[in-house]
């Protein structure tokens, strides 16, 4: 028998971590760390981390890392990249970090066409503070400060950050992945690879990943993927939103999602997919 997938990603220094059971963030982490390694970028990559649950990976991610403040990572990444143009610079931020606190930073960085990659772990909730509404929380979503669900009249509408960024001329590659099932995880990793490739070609790239937060959603861990698909996933549509400067329509994204999901199911049934 041949080893086809190992426990932790090699660029992670520890076997364990402090994320809650059923958290989607480690799945996204695995995706971008393996993408970096498989592209041979381990010794060129520099991460800039925001503030959220995922910040605890700042100590265990085995690439050089600058710990930024809430929201500021894209600007910090800009400074790093401009001084080290040959490095591969990426941010890791949550939706509270990027879309609430630092919206202008990611927009300006994209508009500038900065050759960095911004990664958003989007669970529609402030997980670290215990489950509060963010700018990406969907209408109807129950959080600790929207107990009856997010009400558009009272709390306003969510920001679809990937769609917003795709409209900017400076953004070369914009994708929204998800980790609600194995196929989506594998697909999201390919998005990371394309994003880093885009950066190497000199463009700004963005990968949003919908991640489960059963703790912040107040649901059992096993219900995380289905809850996410039915809430966040219905509003923040998965897919490659912009490739080579061309923005895809929602219909195209839906079509692609149906096709990709079928392909994945067939692959799994046939006996396996590349990790």
């Amino acid at each position, binding site marked *: 028998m041949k080893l086809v997938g190992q426990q932790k990603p090699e660029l992670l220094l520890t076997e364990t971590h402090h994320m809650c059971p059923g958290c989607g963030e480690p799945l996204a982490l695995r995706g971008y760390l393996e993408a970096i390694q498989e592209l041979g970028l381990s010794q060129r990559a520099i991460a800039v981390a925001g503030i959220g649950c995922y910040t605890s990976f700042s100590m265990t991610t085995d690439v050089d890392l600058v710990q930024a403040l809430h929201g*500021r990572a894209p600007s910090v990444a800009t400074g790093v990249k401009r001084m*080290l143009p040959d490095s591969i610079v990426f941010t890791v931020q949550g939706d509270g970090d990027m879309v609430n606190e630092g919206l202008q930073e990611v927009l300006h960085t994209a508009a500038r066409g900065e050759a960095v990659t911004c990664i958003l772990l989007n669970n529609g909730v402030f997980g670290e503070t215990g489950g509060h509404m963010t700018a990406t929380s969907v209408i109807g979503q129950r959080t600790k400060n929207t107990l009856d669900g997010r009400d558009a009249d009272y709390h306003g509408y969510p920001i679809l950050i990937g769609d917003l960024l795709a409209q900017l001329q400076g953004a070369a590659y914009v994708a929204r992945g998800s980790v609600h099932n194995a196929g989506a995880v594998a697909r999201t990793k390919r998005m990371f690879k394309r994003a880093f490739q885009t950066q190497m070609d000199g463009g700004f790239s963005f990968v949003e990943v919908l991640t489960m937060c059963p703790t912040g959603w107040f649901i059992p861990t096993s219900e995380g993927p289905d809850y996410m698909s039915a809430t966040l996933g219905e509003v923040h549509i998965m897919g490659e939103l912009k490739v080579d400067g061309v923005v895809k329509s929602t219909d195209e994204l839906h079509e692609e999602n149906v096709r990709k999901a079928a392909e994945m199911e067939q692959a799994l049934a046939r006996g396996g997919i590349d990790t």
Partner: protein
Amino acid sequence: MSSTGMKLMEGSEAMAEASIAAGCKFFAGYPMTPFTELLEHFAKRLPEEGGVCINAESELEAAGMVWGALSTGARAATGSTGQGLSLMQETFSEITLAELPLVIFNMARGQQDYYQSTRGGGHGDYRHIVLAPMDIGEAVQLTQLAFHLADKWRNPVLVYGDYLIAHIQEAVDIARVDFDEPLPAKDWAVDGSLGGSGRSRLVSSLGFAKAGQPSPGIERHLRAMAEKFAAIEASEIRVETGGLDDAETVIVAFGSPGKFVRYVVAQLRAEGEKIGYVRPITLWPFPYETIAAAAEGAERVGVFELCAGQMIDDVRLGVLGRAPVTGIGGISTDGSGFGVGPLLDAELIRERVLALHRGAPLPPLPDNERML
């Protein structure tokens, strides 16, 4: 020391050139009077010298960008006026606690930012070294010293300028200053090369290191920072004094007003008045002992500053009751609010110093509202 010869330069240009002479490779800023010309000169000159200047979309971006540049080990700076620096304070706090060698230019509106500069507007237990030049010649020297001290102490250094220093012209010689003191290696800087080795680097304000590497933790980190600040206080005070020997009246002033006060005191000394001055060049660390010694034999201490009274708190801490301390400056803006105002007038300062010296009431401040 490589001299380029004397050249007539606007202060903003001179400070940008001095930064480049000191090896500054990165600048990011957002326009704001009277800081704007400094940004303009960096934007023109840094790319010519192989560096980068980004016209940041706001002060928040500027502070973030310089944070990233510093993390790579490059000499880097940002700046604004006090208002813009208010926006940057959160990032300045983190940069300081991450021990990154930032240089900040405050081309201030008057002297309203003494508290902001020396106490900091941000969170946490931190200090910035603050250098206050009195003119362009000194600004050129202190700009280079700022980059040196930032690297020496791995701590931000703020250069406190103003409208006058930013906009008037002086003949200056932009020669690189060689400081006779070794600097610590930047073995903390990120370049990406150690990824996957188990020895990758982490630039953090929290005192954490990567798993498997020695990590002080937040408490020991903050204690070490406090010890560093004490060491800076013990060794980096810079101050100029004059006429203190038998002075009955001591005037304290910094920056451009310090130069005016120095001139006025020299004039009054020549006329036989027993008046001396103290001009703090470092606002932090503050020359408390110099102030104390000056106050020891004096009958009164006056503080001339272009604000409602901020440095006077530090002067009182230095004097510690040895003599009465009186503010003889005041709020002084020109009509636009950008400048240093009608109080920056040698005749007017002379009147106020003499009034204090003779125990007479201070003359009223000139009314400048007509310009609005």
